[in-house]
């Protein structure tokens, strides 16, 4: 309980810092590059085109509304991928800062997550536009987008906190995470429908043990297929996410002031 109160107080106290730092980071990304903010749109759009070409045309995928289907997959995956990759090395990359002033270390992660959330929202705006163009019917189940996003955020944040802590001590965690992430990417059904391609037990298993595959599937169901989400599954992953977050926060609280001694 103590850790939860501390998390709340710190987040409140440092929220202005986290927001300001995220904004500044996004701004610097824009000013440094040639095409400016267009990158935020070009990036998801080009990935979408690549996957649509390779899997829709070459491999003849026949998922209904394949283009928005892929775009949702990419958006959800990118958020998760960025958070995980970002959390590793986050402490080391901020060596300058944390050896000179106290900051709760997960504030760094929260601030980063704001920039990733921002990009996620851009992708979703893009999705809406594409759905309009393609005449995909809109429905009220789309509103479930928000609770599912919150669950995605919590579970990703929890895993990232734990990884952030271990990445301080374990130097080659990045190598391992690259492999695991690549594996997860193919298992999560970014460009195929697990329910259709892997029928029976295997598909069920993959959707039950991999939160990203599950949440990606839920996003698609509520946004493009007008289906009611799987509430028991969502509750399950919410609880798991909260447990991960609790473990991560506890680890960080216990060790964060030793980070400066290591890096």
């Amino acid at each position: 309980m103590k850790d939860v109160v501390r998390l709340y107080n710190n987040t409140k106290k440092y929220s202005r810092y986290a927001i300001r730092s995220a904004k500044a980071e996004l701004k610097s990304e824009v000013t440094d590059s040639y095409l400016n903010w267009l990158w935020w749109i070009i990036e998801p759009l080009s990935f979408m085109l690549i996957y649509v070409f390779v899997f829709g045309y070459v491999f003849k995928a026949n998922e209904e509304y394949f283009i928005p289907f892929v775009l949702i997959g990419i958006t959800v995956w990118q958020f998760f991928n960025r958070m995980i990759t970002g959390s590793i090395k986050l402490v080391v990359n901020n060596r300058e800062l944390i050896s000179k002033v106290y900051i709760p270390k997960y504030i760094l992660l929260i601030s980063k997550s704001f920039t990733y959330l921002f990009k996620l929202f851009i992708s979703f705006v893009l999705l809406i536009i594409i759905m309009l163009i393609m005449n995909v019917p809109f429905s009220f189940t789309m509103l479930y987008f928000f609770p599912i996003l919150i669950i995605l955020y919590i579970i990703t944040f929890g895993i990232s906190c734990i990884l952030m802590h271990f990445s301080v001590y374990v130097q080659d965690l990045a190598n391992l995470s690259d492999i695991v992430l690549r594996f997860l990417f193919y298992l999560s059904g970014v460009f195929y429908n697990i329910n259709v391609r892997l029928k029976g037990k295997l598909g069920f298993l993959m959707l039950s043990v991999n939160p990203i595959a599950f949440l990606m599937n839920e996003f698609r169901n509520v946004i493009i297929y007008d289906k009611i989400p799987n509430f028991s599954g969502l509750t399950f992953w919410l609880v798991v996410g909260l447990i991960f977050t609790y473990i991560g926060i506890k680890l960080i609280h216990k060790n964060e002031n030793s980070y400066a001694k290591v890096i």
Partner: protein
Amino acid sequence: MKKEAITIENLHITYKGLKKTSIRSTFFNKKNRKKIETFEALRGVSFTIDEGKIIGIIGKNGSGKSTLLRAIGGIFSPDIGSIDLHNNTVSLLSIGVGFNKKLTGYENIYLSGLLLGFNEEQVREKEQEIIDFADIGDFIYKPVKTYSSGMYSKLAFAITAILETDIMLIDEVLSVGDVQFKKKSYGKMKELIFTENRTVIIVSHTPKTLNELCDEVIWLHDGKIKMQGDPDKILAAYEKFMNE
């Protein structure tokens, strides 16, 4: 009545076997795992400092001076014991606040201010003063990574010096920027030190500076307080000890 600004009780800080490791060595090198090296930088330091006092800390290399400052600054947490700052804000002057190098100096002023416990309004009020003091021209609107090391430290000093915290920790003698800036920063530092109500801790190797500035001196030796009290007396004993 005297008000305490810093209370430190039985402070221990240990650098444990927090060495970096790799996955391979954790799994396959079991021998290494058991050998945890520990180094106690501070072993049982206790003292209190009243508000408005200027305290000097002296000691040879490796005696725990910088560790003590960092612990007071909140960067290291105590392994045993406690540090109570009585809700005062604190900053490590001279090494400044860490910058995010991708961002502009201007943006870093705000981020540093927020980290030092100020809100955006308070930083806005001091913004111009900081920019003037740092005196790095248009570079303030350029990313910090484009700065020369001199400009970097000038801005770092300006931020911590102008955004005045209740407790200031000063590590070593300032050697920031060119001769002109050095003069200016030394003057500013004196002004800050002698402001009433501000509690200052200065770490130094040079007895002369400490004698000039401090009300009281603490002599750290091997992580413990060897002597504490009147500057003249302590510094004389220290110099005698060092010359032996």
